[in-house]
Structure formats: C-alpha cells, structure tokens
C-alpha cells in the first residue's frame, strides 16, 4: 500500500490499485495487480479491475479521480480472464451501472451471467472512442490464456500489456508506487525469474528470443511511449528499461523452474 496512488503516468492515464505480497523461496516479494484509468474528453475506460482483494482500493482511487474531473466510467477493458486481472469485474459493473465490458469477453457470461447484456466483443484493431483518444485492442505478444488482448491508448501511446513486462518489486526498498526508472535497486533478472516461476511457467519452455523480437516489432509499429503492465512497474523510458526487461525475461527462461508456492507441509502445521 502506498500514498503515491493514484499516479498519473502519462497525461490522462492514471495508475491505481495495490500490491500483493508473494512468498517465494523464503523471501517476500511485492507485485502489482494494477488497474489504469484512461480519461478521454467524453468518457473514461478502466483497464483491468485489480485483484479481487483490491476493490475497495480501486473504488477509492476511482472516486478521487472522478472528483478531480475525470469523465464518467463508460467502459471496462480487461486483458484476460485470470482473476488478478478481472476479479473485480462483477463489482465494477455493479458500482458503475452504465459501464460496458469490452475486450475478449470469453467466460464472463459463465461467471457473471446477469451482466451478459453489458459485454461487447472486440477484435484486434477495434477501438473504444473516449473523445480525443481511444483504446484499441492490440496483439498480445506475451500471454498465457489464448483469449488475451493487450490495450493501447492512441492518445498518449500507452501500451497496456497485461501479463507482459511482469515482474515483482522490493517493498523494503520503497519501490511500491514507483515507475521502473525510479526503482534503482530493482534487479530485473531476479524479479523476472520470480514471476516466471509463480505465474509464467511457459516462458521457461518457449524460445523467448522470438517473443522479445516480436515485442520490439510491436513497440515500434505502435510507436509506444509508455508501458503500463499489470504486474510490473510502469515503464516511462523505453530505451533504458525495455532492454533490461527483455534480459530479465531471457534470464528467467534459463533458470530452472523451482515450483510454486512452497509452504509449510500440512503435516507440520498445527
């Protein structure tokens, strides 16, 4: 938890939400399950909902932003169906009855059937008009579920890559609420490897050079200026940080998989 949020990471793009502590190999890491509000001239879109635990924080941050003049929330865009990205979906749609859920809306009609009429399908290149800017569904280079879309703000050229650029950070070093370039002690290979062990198993089996090349291609094609990952810290200087993240991704792919969530065995618990 940090007092730095909501934080404007690009004009009209606000980083909101909270961290989640991750226990791994005897250490405690933090990672974000962030959401972002993109404010246009006539409407706002919420990208991701935050972790299921974070709805009270998300709601408070949104209230602050609307009180400061952000247009009404008309759209919710979630990158994919894993609950750290969409677990607050039901409560967002309940709290904002005018909001429409957009994206690849697979599964949500099974989980929240009473909101099915408020779900809109998006294909690659489809865009949500916010007035003066739009949010577009773009190629999800790093993904796990096949139904992933990444989002792209055409106004400030902010990329919302969901599980892409996923890495933990060090709470004890004061990284919570910092962008990547401010977190000077962040060891990207270390924190990338942690996240790969916990959540991106496949990256240890695929040719990550090919995926990193595709990342470069996408960033260049879209002219991305800022990257707003769900789990990692926002990236505001791509030339400095993206190479480090790719290095971390490739390093993580080489580190032997060490298993998930090692805990005290049942037999030793009281």
């Amino acid at each position, binding site marked *: 938890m940090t007092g730095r949020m909501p934080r404007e990471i690009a004009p009209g793009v606000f980083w909101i939400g909270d961290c989640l502590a991750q226990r791994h190999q005897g250490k405690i890491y933090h990672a974000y399950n962030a959401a972002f509000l993109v404010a246009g001239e006539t409407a706002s879109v919420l990208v991701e909902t935050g972790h*299921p635990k974070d*709805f009270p924080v998300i709601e408070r941050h949104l209230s602050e932003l609307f009180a400061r003049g952000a247009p009404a929330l008309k759209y919710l865009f979630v990158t994919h169906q894993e609950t750290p990205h969409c677990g607050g979906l039901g409560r967002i749609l309940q709290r904002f009855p005018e909001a429409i859920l957009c994206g690849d809306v697979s*599964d949500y*009609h*099974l989980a929240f059937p009473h909101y099915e009429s408020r779900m809109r399908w998006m294909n690659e290149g489809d865009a949500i008009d916010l007035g003066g800017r739009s949010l577009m569904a773009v*190629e999800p280079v790093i993904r796990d579920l096949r139904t992933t879309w990444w989002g792209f703000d055409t106004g400030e050229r902010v990329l919302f890559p969901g599980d892409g650029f996923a890495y933990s950070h060090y709470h004890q070093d004061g990284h919570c609420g910092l962008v990547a370039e401010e977190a000077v002690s962040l060891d990207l290979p270390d924190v990338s490897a942690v996240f790969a062990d916990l959540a991106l198993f496949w990256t240890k089996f*695929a040719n990550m050079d090919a995926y990193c090349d595709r990342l470069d291609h996408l960033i260049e094609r879209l002219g991305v200026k800022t990257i707003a990952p769900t789990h990692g810290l926002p990236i505001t200087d791509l030339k400095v940080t993206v190479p480090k993240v790719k290095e971390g991704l490739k390093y993580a792919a080489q580190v032997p998989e060490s298993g998930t*969530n090692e*805990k005290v065995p049942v037999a030793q618990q009281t």
Partner: protein
Amino acid sequence: MLTQTASVPVRTMPGMEGGIAVLAENKVYALQHPYALDGRVSSYPASARGYSVANSYLLTQSDAAMLIDTGFGKDEPAIRAQIESLIAPGLPLSLFPLRLNEFMSINNVETFAGHFNVEQCYTSNIDAALWFDFGAKADGRSILDAMPVTAVTRSDTIKLGTKGRPIDVMQAPLRLIATRWLYDRTTRTLFSSDMFTHVWRAHRDGPWIVTADDDTTSARELRSFLLNTRYWWLEGAPTAAIRRGIAAVFDQCDVETIAPGYGCILHGRKVVARHVEMLDEVLAGLDKSVAVSRYVARDEER
C-alpha cells in the same frame, strides 16, 4: 436430463441443469454442468463447437467431505443443491480449488463458505482467502477472513475424515500457472485440473464420461487441442522433463479414472492408459529435438 454410460449412474435434480455422476458410491461424485462452446470459452479452441462441462467433485466420508473446485457462478444454485443432496446438513466440508486464478475453480468459494460448514480451504497459497472475494455476498470478505486456510506443498498428503482417507497432493507437471493435481488412493481417481480436458461433445446432454466403448479421440486431435488452447507454447519446447513428470505421476499412482476440471471424465484403466500414452506421444512429437519453437500468434490454430 444428462445421459451417461451404464457403468456410471447419473442423478439429476428436477428443474436444475447439470447432473451428478456417481464415480464411486459414497466416495466420489462429479457435479457436472454443461456450457456451450461457441467461441466464448477460454479453455477451448476458438473454433470448437458443441458443448463441454465444468466439473466439481465431491469426496465424501461419513464424517467429512471435500469439494474440489467450486464451478462457475452461473451454476452456483445448482451445485449448492447438489451438495446439499449428498451430504448431511452441518457436515464439515473442506474446499480445494486446484487453480487460484480461474473463475471455474474459485467463483463460488465465497458463497459456499457462507452457506456450508466449511472447516478449511486447502490451497497452495496461504493468502488464498484474498483471491476469492468477488462480491457475491455483502459480508463476503468477513466470511473469507474467517475461513481457515490450510496451505499444502507441491508434494503432500491430506487426510479426509477421522478415518484419514488419504488424498495425495502434487504440483501439476504441465500447467499454465500454480496448479495442483490430487490423487484419491481409495477410488484410484486422479483429479487433473486443466489437463486431460480434451474431450468435448456435440450435444448438451453428453455423455460426459468416456469409457472404453466410446473412446474415439485421436492423437492428432489431442495435439490440436493442446496447441489451440493454453498449451500453445509446447511446439518446439523441451518436453522431456514434462513427459518425465507426467510419467512419474502415473508410475506412482494406480489411476483408474482421470477427473479433469472441465471436459469429459476418462474412466477405466484401458481408457486412462490410452490417453496417457497419446499425451506422451504428442509431447514427444512436439519436443525441441523434432520441432522448432517460434513466435505463435494469438489466433493461429494448428
């Protein structure tokens, strides 16, 4: 009305969709709820058409029960009624969602924790209660905070009931994220979460259990299913370690039934052996020694 094979009786409840497949009387029940494959289901290929089922499993003893996965929100009233029909009111119930990040596994934890006598929730993550708060109940957070959570390792054994029915816990050797498989020694049933999920049906009434009389899946279909769903990255991967991990599970566990989190249940030694062999064959054919790992675009189907 669900139909089923003669060897596995099915119970239905008037006015409710879904059925209870009796895998072992008084021991294991599959609570199966169909959904359409219409391009809107993340766990199946975009092009798949027909129907599948979300499976929750109820393991019962005379003095305790355990529910493996809690199903989608759309099925909550039906699953709750099925559980009520199978266990006595107030019986201690444990929950074990095998995947913490998918609605199919955890959507109804909050509701069931508030309704049944849930004595504990087994999980791979000690902070699991934080993951189940979807706002289904006004007091959901306090219900979840009060729910005892018991962490299990990736290699553990839990005991069900005072007679200590052993349930082995293992880390899934092939997975998307943190996933547990369970093995019930008593009924020789392997609960395989998001693996062995590759059999779906053309019709809403199933049948939802594959037996030796009705086992037509080919290795080519299995390969296509894996590559067109969450295992799209397998082509060109070093699959030897994965194959060893799967082989070790079936070497150590005498499996008569594979009970996946969704899709048809694979029942009988002959069926189990055939699907395990097919999977191994497919994984061998995808190994980096014979295939190339490359960038795979989102909507590429193979």
